[in-house]
């Protein structure tokens, strides 16, 4: 399998993207910002279309638009957390602009736009070049390192913003930086996993880890390993079964991990068990 260069590139980029998604995913689930992550990943698609319409490199569009939306959401919301109606309306509008740009592209430069669209929406990890893969891995690694470095203040400001403010942690700036990191990961992963499927690699491992343990460091490690495991398994599966797209396989495995975690913790909860979610499930 590793004899082909495109497979090696896919594994290199995929591993580090999954690592970044899994790491940030745990915090996204903890902060209940899955919807914001969803908006960022969908908007990444519009960024790619806009870049194609303007004739610039795809990455410029991806990063500009996701970062702009992250900062916008952070600025509008209370404590850098926008409420869901604001997120919903602004990103629906951006998607509408995407529909317009798509029509502009289709009427002006007739031809290959359909394939680009499908690739941006659903990702084509096997079409990454060696330099693309290296860059993706580097960006993902940098984002992961940034989040890990800020783990303690981020944890405190997510769980108890008042206490964090008292302790001198800049909660608002940290929230903005978190959204910006999420935007960067979303923009970079769009090329591999696809704008529509990226959320699964963020929400499912984070959710699974949150079900399994309440301990933060273990949770982050678990979430990251589930994401990487799903990525490896998905890549191997899609290589073995030709008609199975890589992103579908990856998302399917991540979702299976989440479902499995839910079932396992239900079976294990014969004795009182302290998890992050047990308080929410008593109602």
């Amino acid at each position: 399998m590793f004899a082909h260069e495109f497979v090696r590139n896919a594994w290199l980029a995929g591993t580090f993207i999954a690592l970044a998604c899994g790491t940030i995913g745990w915090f996204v689930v903890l902060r209940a910002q899955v919807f914001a992550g969803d908006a960022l990943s969908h908007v990444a698609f519009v960024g790619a279309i806009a870049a194609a319409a303007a004739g610039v490199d795809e990455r410029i569009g991806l990063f500009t638009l996701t970062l702009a939306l992250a900062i916008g959401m952070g600025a509008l919301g209370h404590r850098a957390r926008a409420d869901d109606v604001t997120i919903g309306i602004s990103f629906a509008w951006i998607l509408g602009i995407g529909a317009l740009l798509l029509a502009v592209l289709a009427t002006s430069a007739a031809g290959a736009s359909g394939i680009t669209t499908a690739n941006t929406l659903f990702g084509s990890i096997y079409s990454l070049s060696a330099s693309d893969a290296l860059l993706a891995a580097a960006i993902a690694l940098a984002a992961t390192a940034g989040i890990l470095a800020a783990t303690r203040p981020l944890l405190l400001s997510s769980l108890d913003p008042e206490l964090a403010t008292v302790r001198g942690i800049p909660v608002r700036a940290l929230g903005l930086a978190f959204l910006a990191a999420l935007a960067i990961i979303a923009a970079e992963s769009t090329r591999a996993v696809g704008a529509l499927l990226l959320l699964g690699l963020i929400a499912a491992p984070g959710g699974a880890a949150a079900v399994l343990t309440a301990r933060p460091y273990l949770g982050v490690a678990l979430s990251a390993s589930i994401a990487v495991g799903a990525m490896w398994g998905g890549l191997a599966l899609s290589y073995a079964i030709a008609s199975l797209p890589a992103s579908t396989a990856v998302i399917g495995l991540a979702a299976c991990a989440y479902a499995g975690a839910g079932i396992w913790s239900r079976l294990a909860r014969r004795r009182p068990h302290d998890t992050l979610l047990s308080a929410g499930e008593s109602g």
Partner: protein
Amino acid sequence: MIPSLSPNPIDDVRRLFTYPFMVNALAAGTIVAILAGVVGWYVVLRRQAFASHTLSVMAFPGAAGAALAGLPTALGYYVACTAAALAIGRAGRSPGAAAGRRGQVGESAVIGTVQTVGLAAGFLFLSLNHSVLGGPETLLFGTFLGITSGQVLVLLAVALAALVALTALARPLLFSSIDPEVARAGGVPVARLDALFLIVLGLAIAATSQLTGALLVFALLIAPPAAAHQITLRPLAGLLLSVALALLTIWLALAIAYYSIYPVGFYVTTIGFVLYVLARAAGRIRRR
């Protein structure tokens, strides 16, 4: 060929009704706007924008799956949206508006996972069956050109069923949306209501997405009701205003789209966004 505007606006409006496809589109748009206005008002009240976005995205796997199985597309929409509503309702446990933060932690991860699984399945169906659907754009961004009168009748039936269900549930649903704890204490079956509402929402979204496309249903479902919430807090006035704004959005969007080459989804989202911004500004001025 794109029709051009004449100097006489009344004549322009009359010309909108000359083609059967346009009459069907306007009829479908009207039904969908009334439905989305009412259901959306509850969605905004219950803070379920994420859940409704997820349900709206389910239209994509539904349509792709139906095409693969050789079934009518509309059937795929309804089946997929209802299935996703059931999945979210079962796994999300307490999707009430005032569910505690810990409740929401689990819920939003579940919704996000359901959404991507649906999309991944849709992508799989599409790649197994690429020749029939052509491309994902129409499914995701919608078209109002191909609506038949049979579809309008189905839409009408679904909308009537959903509206009757919502009218019957109106009072307990309002109660349990505003204060689930007190409603539960007062004997209202909150969990069952939550699940029922999700199913009604799924049906409404399946109906709407045939017109606006899977990604943009959301604009019609959230923007007019959110604007109404900014202007009034009274339930009945809010519901009526929300329906009126939704009707205005879809009529304007269809009329503009008829005279332009660009997709109706763009106009729906833009008008919805502008309405919301205006309503926010109006609400802020009034509160001074």
